[in-house]
C-alpha cells in the first residue's frame, strides 16, 4: 500500500488533511489540495497519487466520513468531514508533530 519511501510524508498528510477539514464543515478532495496549497503559500503540494488512498484509508479508520453532494457549480463531488474520532486523532497527530519538530529543532540547534 503506497510508496514506502514517503512514510513520514504520509503521516504528515494525515495531519494536514485532518487539520484542513477541522477548519471547515466539509470539503471535497480537490478543495483539500487547493486549501493546503493556498494556506502553505505554495510551500506544500499534495500529490494526487497519495491523497485519495489516504482519504479512503482515513474513512475506513472512521476519522473522516464522506458523502456525495453538489458543489457551488452544481457538480457531483464526494465531500469529506471530520468525525469525533477524527478530532481526537487530530490532537494526537498535532502532539506528535510538535514533539517531532521540537526534537529535530533541538538537534539542529545543539548537535
Amino acid at each position, binding site marked *: 500500500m503506497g510508496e514506502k519511501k514517503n512514510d513520514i510524508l504520509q503521516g504528515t498528510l494525515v495531519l494536514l488533511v485532518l487539520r484542513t477539514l477541522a477548519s471547515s464543515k466539509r470539503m471535497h*478532495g480537490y478543495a483539500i489540495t487547493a486549501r493546503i496549497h493556498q494556506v502553505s503559500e505554495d510551500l506544500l503540494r499534495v500529490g*494526487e497519487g497519495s491523497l485519495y*488512498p489516504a482519504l*479512503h484509508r482515513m474513512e*475506513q*479508520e*472512521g476519522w473522516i466520513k464522506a458523502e456525495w453532494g453538489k458543489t457551488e457549480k452544481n*457538480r457531483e*463531488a464526494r465531500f469529506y468531514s471530520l468525525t469525533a474520532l477524527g478530532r481526537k486523532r487530530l490532537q494526537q497527530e498535532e502532539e506528535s508533530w510538535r514533539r517531532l519538530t521540537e526534537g529535530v529543532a533541538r538537534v539542529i540547534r545543539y548537535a
Partner: protein
Amino acid sequence: MAWIRQIRNFFRPDGLQRDLHRELAFHVAERAEELRQSGMSEPEADRAAHRQFGNLTAQIERTRDMDIPEHLEAMLRNLRLSVRSLAKAPGFSATVILTLALGIGANSAVFSAIDAVLLRPLPFPNGDALLLITQAQRKNPEPNVAPVRLEDWNHMNSTLLGITGYYAQDSSELSGELPEKLKCEFVAPRFLQVLGVSPALGRDFAPQEEHDGGPTAALISDRLWRRRFNASPDVLTKALRFGKTSYAIIGVMPPSFHFPDRDADVWVISAPDYPFARSRELTWFTAIGRLKPAVTLAQARADLNTVQADLARQFPKPDADISPRVELLKESTVGGAERSLWILFGSVSLLLLIACTNIAALLMSRATGRQQEIAVRFSLGATRASVAAVQLAEVFVLALAGAALGLLVAMGASTVFRSLASDLPRIDEIALNWHIVLYCLACALVTTLLSGIIPALRSTRRSLSQSLAQAGRSQVSGRNPLQLTLVAAQVALAVALLGGAGLLLRSFQELGRVYPGFDPKHILTLHVSTTWAETGDQPGSKQRTDRILEGLRSLPGVQSAASTAFLPGVPNAYELDMTTAEGRAESEPKIRALARFVTPSYFATLSIPLLAGEMCRDGAGQPLAMVNRTFADRYLNGSAAIGHHLLAAGNSYIPPVAIDGIVGDAREAGLDREPQPTVYWCNNGLQPGTFFLVRTHGDPAALTEAVRHKLHELEPLRSVYDITPLSAHISDAYAENRLRTILLACFALTAVSLASIGLYGTLSYLVSLRRREVALRLALGALRNQVVGQFLGVGLRTAALGCAAGLVLAAGFARLLSGMLFGVSPTDSLTIAGVLTVVLAVSAAASLIPAVRAARVEPMQALREE
C-alpha cells in the same frame, strides 16, 4: 469498524468502482477548469490536468485497495483459480469429492445421532432441569414412588419447582364399535406444569380434576386425535370410556409430545387422594421433578434427603428405610446408548482420517505432476505462502463439495438409524438442523487442513521444486517413502476398524448360537388389556387367566399356552432379596434372585425341564414356587431346597411361598447373561402388562388372526394387542447391539476399500513415475515376472507394515469394546486371522493391477517418449 465497511464494499465491487471513478474524475475536471481559468486552451488544460494526475486507472486501483479487505479478495481469487484447475482434472476431483462425501457423510450422520441423543436437551422447555426421582428401600433400588410420598416430597422441598409422576397402562377404550387398546398414562397432579408443556388444543387439567371425586378428564395425543377424531376441533365435546368411567376430552397435546412413552395415547389423572392410594407402602409412580433456576443437582439431592429424614421421623415405618435418589432425566433416558454412540463416532472419525490420508497421498502425486507449474509461479515472484494457499484453496473447494454431498448422506442416514434401531432412545429426534450443517462445514475445514497441509508444504519447498522442474523429465527413479507411509497408515486404521467390527460380528454370531435354556422358537406372545383396579379381585383375575389360556389351548395348531409377567430372554432384571422361613446362618450367602411370576404351564411351553421335585400346581391352597438349578445350588444345597419357604424381605405384595421343585437354568434376563438364581412364583393373576405365550406347531405369526378371534369371542370387552413372536421381542431387545454391529461393519468395509484405493493409487503413480526405468530394465533383459514381483513386493510390504501397526491399534479398540462382547475374547485369534487375511488379500489385489501394468510397458515406446 473498518472491516465491516470493507466487507460491504467487497460485495459491491461494481458500485465501488463507479464511485471511485466519479470521485477522481471530478478532481481532474476541477484541475482542468482551474488551468483553463488561468488562460490555457481547453484541450491543453485537459491534457495538463490528466498528466499531473497520472494514470487514472492505477489511481483508482490504489484507492480501491483501501476500501476492500485484501485477504478476502486474495482468497476469492484463489478459490476461483482452484475451481478452474480442478475442472481440468475431473477424475481426480471426483475421486476426492466422493471419498470425502463418504467420510464426512458417515461422520455427520453419527454426529447427528450424537447431537440428538446426547447433546441436545430433552424436547421440553429447559429440559436439562428435569430430574428422575426414584426411591431406594434398604438400598434396594425401587423405581416407583408412593403417591402420598410424592405429594410430601412435592410440598416439603425447597429446591424444586414441582414433582409429578406417571405410570402407564394399556387400557381398553370402549366408546367405539370395538374395544380399542390405548396406551393410557396415569399422571400425578402438575404433570404438564413440571414438563413445561401446554396442550396444542384445549386446556390443562383443572385443580378440581386432580382430586378424588372431581370430574374425570383426559388429554389425548395428536396421533389419536387425527386417527379417531379426524383432527376435528369439536373433539373437546367428546369423551373416552374406560371400564365404567367416562373421561371428557379437555385437550390435545402437540404432535412432538411423546412423554413418557412414544406410543402414549391418553393422559388421565391418578389422584393421590384416592382411598386406595393412601398407603405409604404402595408404590406406583415414576417421579419426575424440575429444578428451580440456579439450583444444582447436588443441592436438590441434599434437600430431598433432608425432607425424607423429616418423613422418617413422622412415619418411621416404612419411611425410615427409604431414601430418595435423584438423577438427571436426560441421563436416565439416554442410558447405555451413550457408549455405543461414542464408539461409532470414534470409528467414523477414523474413517474420515483414512479418507484424509488417502487424499493427502493423492494430492502429493498430483503436486509432483505440477512441479513445473509451481516453479513457474515461483519464478514469477509468488511467495511460498501464496503458492501453498492456492493448493489449500483447491483442497477446500473439494472438501466443500464433499461436505455438501456428505450432508445428503447424513440426511439419508437418519432413516437408516430409525430402521435399524427403532428402540434407541430419542431416535425420532434425529433430524437435519443447523448443528449438522455447521458440523459438516467444520469437517470440511478440518479435512482441508489434515489432508492439504503436508502436500502443500512439501510441494512448495523451493529447492525441491526448482531441482525437479529441471530434472522432471529425465528422472529415473525416486523414492516416495512419505506416500507409502501414508498408505501404511490407512491400512493400519482399516485393520483396527475391521478388527473391532470382526469382534462384534463374532459376538453376534455367538449370541445366536447359545442355547438359552428355553426354546424361543414357535412362540407367539400377546397382551390382553386389563386394569390395575381389576387386580384387587384376585380370584376373579385368576379365573380370567385360566379362561384365556383354555381358549388359546383349544385353537388348532397350539401346543400349549402360559402367561408370565416378564418375557424370557429380554433384559429385565427384577431382583428381590429373600430369606427363608426356616432361617439361615449368618455365614450363608444372602439370597438375592431374579423374580418371575408365571403360570405352571410356563415351563412346558418354553421347554424348561423339571429337574427335581414336582411341577407346581394351581389352586393347591398354599402358594408355591419353583427355583432354578443355580438358585438351589448356590443357596440351598441343591435338591435339599425343596420344601423350604421363601419370604421376600420387606415386600408385602409377595406372599411367602414353598419351593415345590427345581427346573433347569434359563437365560431369563437376557441371552447374553449367564443364568442367574431365579425364583418363579406360580401365580396366574392377570395384570396390566402380563404376557400370554402360545407354543405353536408351525409359524407362530400364522395364528395371529385365529388368536384374535378366539379372544374376542371369550372377552368381547377387552382388546388383544401386540401379537408378536417371542423371537422378534428378543431380537428387538438387541437392536442397539445390531445397530452398532452393522454400522461398524459398514464403516470397516468402507475403510478397507478406501485403504486399498489408496494403495492402488499410490502404486499406480509410482509405476507411472518409473515407466522409463522399467522400460530400460526390460530392454536390458529383465524378466516381466521380476518387474511384477518388485511392485507387488512394494505394495505387500506397505500393507504388512500397516497390518502390524493396525494390530496394535486393534488391540486398543478391542479393549474399548470389551464390555460389548459376548463369547469372544478381545484377543480372539480367529478374528485377527480373518482380518489379516482379508486385508492382505485385498492389498495384494490392489497392488497386482499396477504391478502387471508396469510389466506390460513396451520398452521402445516408453524410451522414445523422452
